[in-house]
């Protein structure tokens, strides 16, 4: 366990360093004048689709995404309980199955409620 997470932690450091190296090469190449760097206001304007952008960018987003996020939160907590159960079902036996069915039933009632309230419809 400790060995595994030690390896993963060191690997994380290596991965971050590797990515920084990849992102750093163009900066070094720019300093030695291989990569061009000639900014001007038109080039640095927001592209969008070629026409000048109207208003500010960080506008209010579509509220429908929020419902999906709520339903997701309610259901995804379930999975945290499902994984340990799935890994040791053979030792838990029928008692474990019935416990998880009760848990699933509660989650499914919430899901059906969301479905009946037409939260999952895109309207």
């Amino acid at each position, binding site marked *: 366990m400790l060995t595994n997470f030690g390896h993963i932690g060191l690997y994380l450091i*290596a991965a971050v360093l590797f990515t920084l190296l*990849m*992102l750093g090469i163009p900066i070094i190449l*720019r300093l030695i004048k291989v990569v061009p760097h000639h*900014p001007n206001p038109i080039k*640095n304007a*927001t592209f969008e689709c070629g026409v000048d952008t109207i208003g500010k960018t960080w506008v209010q987003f579509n509220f429908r*995404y929020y419902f*999906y996020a709520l339903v997701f939160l309610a259901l995804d907590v379930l999975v945290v309980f499902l994984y340990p159960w799935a890994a040791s*079902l053979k030792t838990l036996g029928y008692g474990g199955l019935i416990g998880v069915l009760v848990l699933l039933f509660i989650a499914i009632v919430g899901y059906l409620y969301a479905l009946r309230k037409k939260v999952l419809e895109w309207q």
Partner: protein
Amino acid sequence: MIMSNLDLNNLGNLQKVLPPDWPGGFWWHWLVFTTIIINAVLILVMAFIYIERRGMGRMQSRLGPNRTGPFGIFQPVADAIKVLLKEDIVPDTADKVVHWLAPLIAFVPTLMIFAVVPFGAGWSLAGDLNVGVLYVTAIGSISTVGVFMAGWGSSNKYSLLGAMRNVAAVVSYEMPLVLSVASVVLLAGSLSLHEIVQAQSIPFILLQPLAFLIFFMAGCAEINRSPFDLMEADSEIVAGFHTEYSGMKFAMFYLVEYAEALALSALITTFFLGGWQGPLLPPNFQWLWFVAKVFIVFFVMVWTRTTLPRVRIDQLMGFSWKFLLPLSIINLIATAIQVLVLPEGSLWVMIPVNFTIAAVLILIGSNFFTPGRGRVEV
């Protein structure tokens, strides 16, 4: 003889210094496998780009890139060099720090997934990690944060729209994905990826056909592959979250896209296709089976990309919440009952049972599910 004795003594001393549960080859193991993984990811991504461009070309009745080297195999290398020498343009109104950090945060988690994927008997950085599946699902979702940072930091409305669609897709398809892996865990009885591979005397695609289909579709939606690629739909929102990226930072997002496809192919191979297990090859060359299966899975992904048209956002969400999620829950319960009822060692009985369940569920589900029609405001 004297030399080898000395070496053994040195090794013994070294092991006394280290804590008892850290093996002697700790640093070597890390160094070798980190080098192998990062290089393998880069080389396989280049191979994937080549396969995708040539394969798509063939399927669309054209040639694809064929000028750089024999059969155009050096095209990805030429692209990499070209993109390295391009000017890096950052919009004046962009959130500079977020814009700069986004490729880093998108790429590192994708690379981290490969730490637990076994590509040979005991060949992985941490393949016997006993919470491997949980680790994969947890790490795999983090690159969405990088994508959203890219959309948010670009100060571009289309980028923001693309990033929001990406988050919505990941949030919707996370549930079927995770539930279909849970039924694999039920069969294997372990969360360790290494033990899941070793449990597959019969590949789990035969025992869990429905879980395989759900995992494949949900995975394709999570990594923005066509037909679910409407977060970078060229005809609607320019290029989605990476519209304002250029030069090396754009290349990083390109790399993330294919590294995610590689991670998904590797995970499908590990969960459903028996991982590195295969006949004929000697034990030290079984990683060739792994690579071959990864390529086959990726080829199927290219195939679906060229075959199916892009879905709309309401169809994308509806397909996950009203079709895949109920099916994966029913499949999970059915698998749990089979694991409990059937005696140990009678896995082959499950093959016809599960194929029947899959066919019946898909037929019933497709009767109840209709993709949205008419105009939709997005």
